[in-house]
């Protein structure tokens, strides 16, 4: 039984990664799971300089999911390279850095640094809904994604480049094509859906930032549909995510066209969710006598 996959040039022992922003830089979860069992770790969104993050409250629960507005709080790439990366490198898993910025120049400067680090790939975050500048602003159109991605591609010539897309668009295939045409090696989808929860006693939104990104099982069908649409529109591989809790959920994404998957807020529900997904995929392979997990990618037959 072969669970190995190749995501955008990154050889992984299995298709299961943990999603950016839900797993920090891995230390906290290493108390609960063996990081060596993961196909890869996508780091917390990391920027050129440290970012303070948004005012609290930053999270709240919603039906089968949650809203967050963390605001990309992170210690900056230098700190990451010095303190977190050497620690992460002790594990036998692929390290993909989620890169975020407020301006194109910031993305470019950051990716110049990432190009020289001992990492396995970059996930370009063009989709965070919780910061005022950058990110989402670039991620919503074909032109926007193409412009940032091509400028980053020029300086990031030694690492696989995966572009993470927002679902907060009318047609997800447009930014996906923008990424492909700019030379991205892969696409990651979806980031969170913009949402809001109101405290009816205070008549105010629960989150200090008013709106936040919706994640969890509630968004899964939207994510599966979008992964399918992207798979029809582009040739580069897809890292699929959105509410994955079990191996069965992961298989859905792979049938829709994802080469690999990410576990996001499912980590909060159970720190062992990612490991259970790895085991669940193996069980599915045994049950359906699948020799090679790659063979199921994009094999859904539409009615």
């Amino acid at each position, binding site marked *: 039984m072969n669970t190995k996959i190749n995501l955008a040039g990154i050889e992984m022992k299995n298709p299961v990664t943990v999603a950016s*922003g839900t797993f920090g830089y891995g230390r906290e979860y290493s108390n*609960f799971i063996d990081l060596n069992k993961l196909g890869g770790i996508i780091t917390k969104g990391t920027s050129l300089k440290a970012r303070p993050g948004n005012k609290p409250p*930053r999270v709240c629960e919603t039906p089968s999911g949650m809203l967050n507005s963390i605001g990309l*709080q992170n210690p900056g790439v230098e700190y990451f390279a010095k303190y977190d990366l050497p620690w992460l490198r002790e594990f036998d898993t692929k390290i993909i850095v989620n890169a975020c910025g407020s301006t194109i120049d910031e993305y470019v400067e950051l990716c110049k640094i990432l190009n020289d680090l001992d990492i396995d790939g970059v996930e370009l975050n063009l989709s965070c809904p919780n910061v005022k500048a950058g990110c989402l602003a670039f991620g919503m159109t074909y032109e926007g994604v193409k412009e940032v991605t091509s400028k980053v591609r020029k300086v990031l010539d030694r690492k696989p480049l995966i572009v993470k897309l927002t679902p907060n668009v009318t047609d997800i295939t447009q930014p996906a094509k923008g990424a492909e045409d700019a030379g991205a090696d892969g696409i990651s989808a979806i980031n969170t859906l913009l949402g809001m929860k109101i405290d009816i006693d205070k008549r105010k939104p629960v989150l200090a930032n008013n709106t936040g990104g919706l994640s969890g099982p509630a968004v899964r069908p939207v994510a599966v549909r979008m992964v399918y649409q992207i798979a029809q529109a582009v040739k580069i591989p897809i890292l699929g995510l959105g509410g994955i809790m079990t191996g069965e959920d992961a298989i859905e994404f792979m049938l829709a066209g994802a080469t690999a998957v990410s576990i996001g807020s499912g*980590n909060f529900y159970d720190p062992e969710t990612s490991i259970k997904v790895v085991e669940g995929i193996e069980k599915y392979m045994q049950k359906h006598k699948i020799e090679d997990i790659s063979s199921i990618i994009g094999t859904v037959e539409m009615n």
Partner: protein
Amino acid sequence: MPIKLDCEILKKEKIIEGIYKFTLKAEPIAKTAKAGNFIEIQVSTTGEPFLRRPISIYSIDDDKIEIIFQVKGKGTEILSEKKVGDVINVLGPLGYGTFSVDNYKKVAIIGGGIGTYPLYELAKQLKGKADVTMYMGFRNKDLVTLEKEFEDVCNKVVITTDDGSYKQKGFALDVLKEDCKKEKPDIIFACGPLPMLKAVQAFVLEENIPCEISLEERMGCGIGACLGCAVKVISGKEPRYGHVCKEGPVFKATDVEI
């Protein structure tokens, strides 16, 4: 180090309407837990409600921990319906900022409402080591809880109610302030509603009394990864957002903006 553990409910007690005490079989957690730690409970195995519920540890025994919680919403309601013998999945002990159980001569502990519960293990550990006065404030007589439990471990217990329906009328902090005029304690420990904690903080900063405050904030992961439960930390050169689940839940009153 925090672990994930399936804990059997050994005992369930309704303290007053809407407030429950569970005794959990949790040896590995009990062995390492400190006063001020909390746990995160998965209230449902269906994925709905989605997030775990952070609940402070009330008491630590050899192989057991006790929690007391108020039914506030869907999650705690489901938890309150669990029966003796049921097993719940728990992460714990959580929080690296705990109460400093140290050598003190005179200690004041102040708790408001359900904020008194996270203070009990602290009082228990200080018993016989320091002269401890517990100040507990409640809205009214019907909400007064754990009077006897605190009397058993503290040298003195002061109870106030906002409406005067039981013991002294007024706020617990006002009594503490009066007592401080006679003799200041070496340290004050506090947990309770935000307005009370703000008033406590203002008082101790003015009087220059060491103080530790247990905070709560909406949480995602509970272990320091999601960065959801932010609190402004002002102890360094520049203010920054720290996190209640990791650096807290107990902070020095001088270190946080509340």
